[in-house]
């Protein structure tokens, strides 16, 4: 019950300041702001225009909204806020997510533009302010450590995503300094795609989202951020890096920096954009995939230094090294940093214009001494790094911490699983190729990644350096080195496509799919094949004939519930094959169409089937998964659903839940059924439950009173099809295709209607009849149409029992044994006898028939064979001669079968 305890923080809400205006008609006072005071904590002041969290059903993901107006009534009893909602990824219907066309960022939210939701909330439901940033739709998500910042790119009006204007989203006013977490700083600078050469690689949670960042996007993304930081003054940067050592968010530092920089040196930025020919992709993504969670708070910026040596390069990018200077020992960093940290990864210059580039590389190494060394000779620095690489264990161990062991373990798992055939990440494969010992590579790169805590070396640099050593050992002058470096780079990329190691694909991420067929399916070649394809039960008919009334009833029921925003239950019964599920699906299809046409509010359709789950309680799991996409245990899912359906959630769509094969959800306490019927009755649930089962009186028979009562009396029963209806169904499926004779169709439908009224049966017989017709096509008398004889044959095949044929085909002794059984039954006057008794009769019959009497063992074998076919019902065979025998066919059938012989 931990879900409820966390809510028990007492908050006090009061208006701050005087009312701004008074609405006479409504008698309400408008306010500018109010204050939330939490016990033991400082006051938080919320202004209009500020983004806030609003209490929702999920504590970890409260609703997000922006305050647009605050007002209260005359006596100050009620405090209301009018808000503009944002919708989280998790609140979106799962099936709509694909409209997005990409993986959503976990911190992404959408500007919610649906009209039909209530935008007035009680002020008491407001939790705290939140930062919402607007991003251009093409921008990648910045890597903020801070989970409290949310990003808006698109708006959502329950049908489509649209690009949203930044002015709509951004809060107009900066929060007052008193309010504890400062609201967002707007990153929306005027951005041009090529305004910077540096690229930011998203880290942490966004990793999965953007596995291989597009290079063009990367450029846009990084825009001012790093490029500007590189032009800041040394002092400025130093101050900021000091900040970053404290718990302040790195992204904030950067954006502040950026603003300063852009304000001051617009010209520089222009110049920078001229030389950005190289793409930049970091190669460690795959490796760190395993460390997702732990890396969440990291931001790594890979950047290309500006070409001009005149700039104070070294200082600007030594943001991390400076921070490192505050640390006395490496061991101190054994504890992973909670605060976010920024790393600058730089690419070495591919053009030899800037001799300082190696120095930059090493500056991230952070030791002054080394820096001095490397300034002298670029190649040396590279080599030095390689040297460093050679002993990663020694250098990295003290600060390796848990992360490293995790890395070790995961690399071991990876090897054991032997799943190196993943084609997904070309970068990692390149790295793996470079290394001669793959396991060591894992270690190296992991330690490199950790090493970035202080050093922030660019892995690609090191890798390429290594590469250089392996590949271009011969050439040793600096120019050829540059060349070979770039050639090494290209080489590094090419094999990446061929070789496919990478992350072990854990079954967790397995996608359920059946292999694709290698050859195309053949299209039906003649009329009979065409007819067969159309008559297959699986083919979806254009319309559902003969269920118009039921369709109408269900349609109006569901439609009214959706329009009224209420909930309700309906129980649908009918024998198998009467089109219950098909009709409901058709209704939903029509409603969905109507919703798309904006005739009714949109809704969310979920289907579960009692037969398609292993246990009744799995129903919760499946509903939750289809609703929100999250996985949970049955108990947890029940709690979450309970909360979801009982809480007020102004933006919820109506949910239409189809529960097929309801009787299988029966449990002893019936709590699954109880909940399913209880939720629609809740005030805020907006849940419509359609249940389907076979028996009409299921509610009375298996449900306890409180469940049956909640199910209500909205019932509908599907009658078995009459022969006319069956005929119509076949006709409509055939759709004027002339494949059957009229009489033949009538015979099928009459026969099936008399037996069960099961449309599936009817279609199957017709299909079989077309096959028989096809086989007898060689017969000159055939018309090519399916005639009476074919249908008769199909009917016989499907409906006649095989017992009589089986008896006729049995061996002589088996037939004799059956006769002996009947004789013994007659003698005893019972329908049961032991083998011993029957065997005596059998011996006698053998003598009458002039056959040599058989032994007991053989007699038992005969008896067992008949028992295996279920012509006889037997007791377990270990009883031997004592086992009792019954007939599974009527005596008349046996006589009939044997007489005809």
């Amino acid at each position: 019950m931990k879900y409820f305890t966390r809510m028990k923080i007492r908050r006090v809400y009061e208006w701050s300041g005087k009312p701004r205006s008074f609405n006479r008609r409504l008698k309400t006072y408008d306010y500018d702001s109010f204050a939330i005071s939490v016990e033991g904590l400082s006051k938080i002041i919320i202004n209009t225009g500020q983004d806030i969290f609003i209490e929702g059903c999920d504590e970890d993901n409260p609703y997000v909204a922006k305050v647009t107006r605050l007002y209260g009534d005359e006596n100050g009893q009620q405090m209301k806020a009018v808000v503009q909602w944002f919708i989280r990824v998790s609140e979106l219907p799962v099936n709509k997510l694909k409209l997005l066309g990409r993986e959503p960022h976990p911190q992404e939210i959408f500007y919610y533009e649906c009209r039909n939701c209530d935008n007035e909330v009680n002020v008491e439901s407001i939790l705290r302010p939140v930062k919402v940033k607007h991003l251009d739709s093409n921008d990648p998500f910045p890597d903020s450590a801070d989970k409290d910042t949310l990003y808006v790119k698109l708006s959502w009006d329950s049908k489509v995503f649209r690009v949203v204007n930044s002015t709509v989203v951004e809060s107009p006013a900066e929060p007052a300094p008193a309010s504890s977490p400062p609201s967002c700083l707007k990153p929306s600078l005027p951005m041009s795609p090529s305004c910077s050469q540096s690229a930011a690689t998203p880290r942490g949670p966004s990793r999965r989202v953007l596995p291989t960042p597009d290079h063009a996007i990367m450029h846009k993304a990084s825009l001012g951020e790093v490029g500007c930081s590189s032009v800041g003054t040394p002092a400025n940067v130093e101050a900021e890096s000091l900040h970053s050592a404290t718990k302040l968010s790195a992204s904030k530092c950067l954006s502040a920096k950026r603003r300063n920089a852009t304000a001051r040196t617009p010209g520089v930025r222009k110049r920078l954009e001229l030389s950005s020919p190289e793409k930049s992709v970091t190669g460690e993504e795959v490796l760190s995939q395993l460390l997702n969670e732990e890396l969440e708070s990291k931001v790594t910026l890979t950047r290309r230094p500006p070409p001009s040596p005149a700039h104070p390069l070294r200082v600007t990018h030594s943001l991390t090294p400076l921070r490192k200077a505050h640390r006395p020992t490496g061991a101190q960093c054994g504890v992973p940093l909670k605060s976010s940290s920024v790393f600058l990864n730089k690419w070495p210059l591919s053009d030899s214009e800037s001799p300082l580039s190696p120095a930059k590389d090493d500056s991230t190494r952070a030791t002054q001494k080394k820096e001095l060394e490397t300034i002298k000779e670029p190649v040396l620095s590279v080599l030095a790094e390689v040297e460093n690489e050679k002993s990663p264990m020694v250098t990295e161990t003290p600060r390796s911490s848990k992360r490293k062991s995790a890395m070790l373990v995961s690399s071991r798992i990876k090897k054991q699983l032997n799943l190196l055939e993943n084609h997904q990440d070309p970068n990692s494969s390149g790295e793996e190729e470079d290394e001669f010992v793959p396991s060591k590579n894992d270690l190296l790169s992991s330690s490199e990644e950790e090493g970035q805590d202080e050093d922030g070396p660019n892995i690609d640099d090191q890798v390429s350096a290594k590469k250089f050593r392996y590949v271009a050992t011969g050439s040793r002058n600096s120019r050829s080195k540059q060349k070979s470096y770039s050639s090494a780079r290209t080489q590094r990329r090419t094999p990446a496509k061929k070789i496919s190691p990478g992350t072990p694909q854990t079954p967790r991420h397995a996608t359920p799919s059946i292999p694709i067929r290698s050859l195309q399916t053949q299209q039906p070649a003649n009329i009979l094949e065409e007819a067969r394809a159309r008559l297959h039960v699986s083919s979806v008919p254009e319309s559902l004939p003969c269920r118009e009334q039921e369709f109408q009833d269900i349609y109006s029921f569901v439609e009214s519930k959706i329009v009224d925003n209420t909930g309700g239950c309906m129980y649908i019964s009918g024998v198998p094959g009467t089109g219950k599920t098909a009709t409901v699906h058709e209704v939903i299809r029509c409603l969905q169409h109507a919703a798309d046409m904006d005739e009714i509010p949109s809704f969310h359709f979920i289907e579960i089937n009692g037969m398609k789950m292993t246990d009744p309680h799995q129903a919760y799991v499946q509903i939750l998964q289809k609703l929100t996409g999250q996985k949970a245990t049955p108990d947890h899912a029940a709690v979450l659903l309970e909360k979801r359906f009982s809480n007020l959630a102004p933006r919820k769509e109506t949910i239409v839940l189809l529960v097929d094969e309801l009787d299988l959800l029966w449990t002893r306490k019936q709590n699954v059924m109880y909940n399913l019927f209880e939720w629609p009755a809740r005030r805020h649930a907006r849940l419509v439950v359609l249940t389907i089962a076979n028996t009409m009186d299921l509610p009375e028979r298996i449900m306890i009173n409180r469940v049956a009562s909640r199910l209500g009396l909205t019932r509908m029963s599907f009658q078995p099809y009459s022969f006319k209806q069956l005929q119509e169904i076949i006709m409509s499926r055939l759709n004027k295709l002339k494949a059957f004779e009229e009489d033949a169709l009538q015979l099928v439908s009459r026969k099936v209607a008399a037996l069960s009224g099961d449309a599936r049966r009817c279609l199957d017989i017709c299909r079989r009849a077309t096959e028989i017709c096809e086989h007898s096509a060689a017969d000159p008398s055939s018309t090519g149409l399916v005639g009476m004889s074919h249908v008769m044959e199909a009917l016989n095949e499907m409906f006649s029992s095989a017992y009589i044929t089986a008896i006729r085909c049995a061996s002589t002794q088996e037939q004799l044994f059956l006769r002996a059984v009947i004789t013994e039954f007659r003698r005893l006057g019972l329908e049961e006898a032991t083998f011993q008794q029957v065997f005596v009769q059998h011996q006698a019959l053998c003598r009458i028939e002039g056959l040599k009497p058989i032994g007991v063992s053989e007699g038992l074998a005969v008896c067992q064979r008949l028992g295996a076919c279920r012509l006889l019902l037997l007791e377990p065979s270990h009883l031997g001669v004592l086992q009792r025998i019954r007939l599974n066919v009527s005596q008349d059938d046996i006589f009939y079968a044997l007489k005809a012989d």
Partner: protein
Amino acid sequence: VKLTIGFTQVQQILRERFCERRLPDRLEGVEAQYKHLLELLRRTAIHGESNSVLIVGPRGAGKTTLLQCVLRDLQKEEKVQKNLLQVHLNGLLQTDDRIALKEITRQLHLENVVGDKVFGSFAENLAFLLEALKKGNRSSSCPVLFVLDEFDLFAHHKNQTLLYNLFDVSQSAQAPIAVVGVTCRLDVLELLEKRVKSRFSHRQIHLLSSLNFTQYLERVWTQLSLPDSFPDKKFAQEWNAGVKTLCEDKSVEEVLQRHFNSSKDFRSLHMLLMLCLSRVSVAKPTIKPADLLEASRMCFADTTANMLHGLSILELCLVIAMKHLNDVYEGEPFNLQMVHNEFKKFLHRKSNSMYNFEQPVVMKAFEHLQQLELIRPVDGSSAKVQREYQLMRLTLDHSQIMEALQKYPQCPTDIKQWAMSAFG
């Protein structure tokens, strides 16, 4: 040497045939069924049409052989070869849906399989498989053939979840699948739950052999004769001639008639021929009628009667006493005390070769009979009853006892007479 090689080859060819290790090139007597099944599966593979079918027939009727032959011939077709995934399940191995699901996922090499292990819980596996099948469609996914051997056992799984889902997929626009059930139960449809039954297409292929004795004889002949492809032509000719004379022999015909009367299935015939074949060697180049008679005798031997030969005289006496008790009390159960009394009566009246035994010795003999399951305690008589008074039943037929006595080595004549006398 040449002869030896010839015999090794004969043994090899015929043994493969009799042990059903090699599929026959051509099926006899089931051409219609073969065509039906082949067409059905071909349509699934080529047109992506979902189907379900049951192959029903008594044990040894060739159900699996039929299916295997169809699959073999289907695989020969270019269009089918790469287009059909197969999943083979057996009701005796996959005893519940959990195991069956894992096996299906493993055989389909779905993505939640790593190596040979299937990850995830039962519920997850089911959801995963259904999701996988649902994602497919008729034109693009590879058809899957599900072969469910001992189909009737799958019907005993809880809720018939697996069958429902397989049949449901076969009746809806999902990945094309063909479900082939193989069973010997004629009443298999009655086992299916009504919803499952409705989803099953009701196609049944019955394999009920209606062959008569001439066809049977012919079958024996073809089974024993060597193919034309045999390397040593002369040897093959000689062998085939030998087989022909064998089949024309009167006594052989009699033996085969008896076998035919008892059962028409070929598995028992193969057993008989196998026994004959094992007697063939270089020194004894053909199968003689006597070999067949001997083999037949072995096949029809009564197993329990044979067991009586190993009993001691005391145990045999107890069995005879039980037989008399059965005669007197018309099959009512007896206990040790009654049997012992009956035995003592016999000793008093006419025994000259037997002496009375102590109670513990008789008890020991009685327990031995129980261990051999020649007698069986009556159901419901619990262990509370003292052992001497526990009620028992004899699981032997009188004919078996008399037969055993005839053959019992050095059986005292008075005991024989006692057994044959009408009243103890």
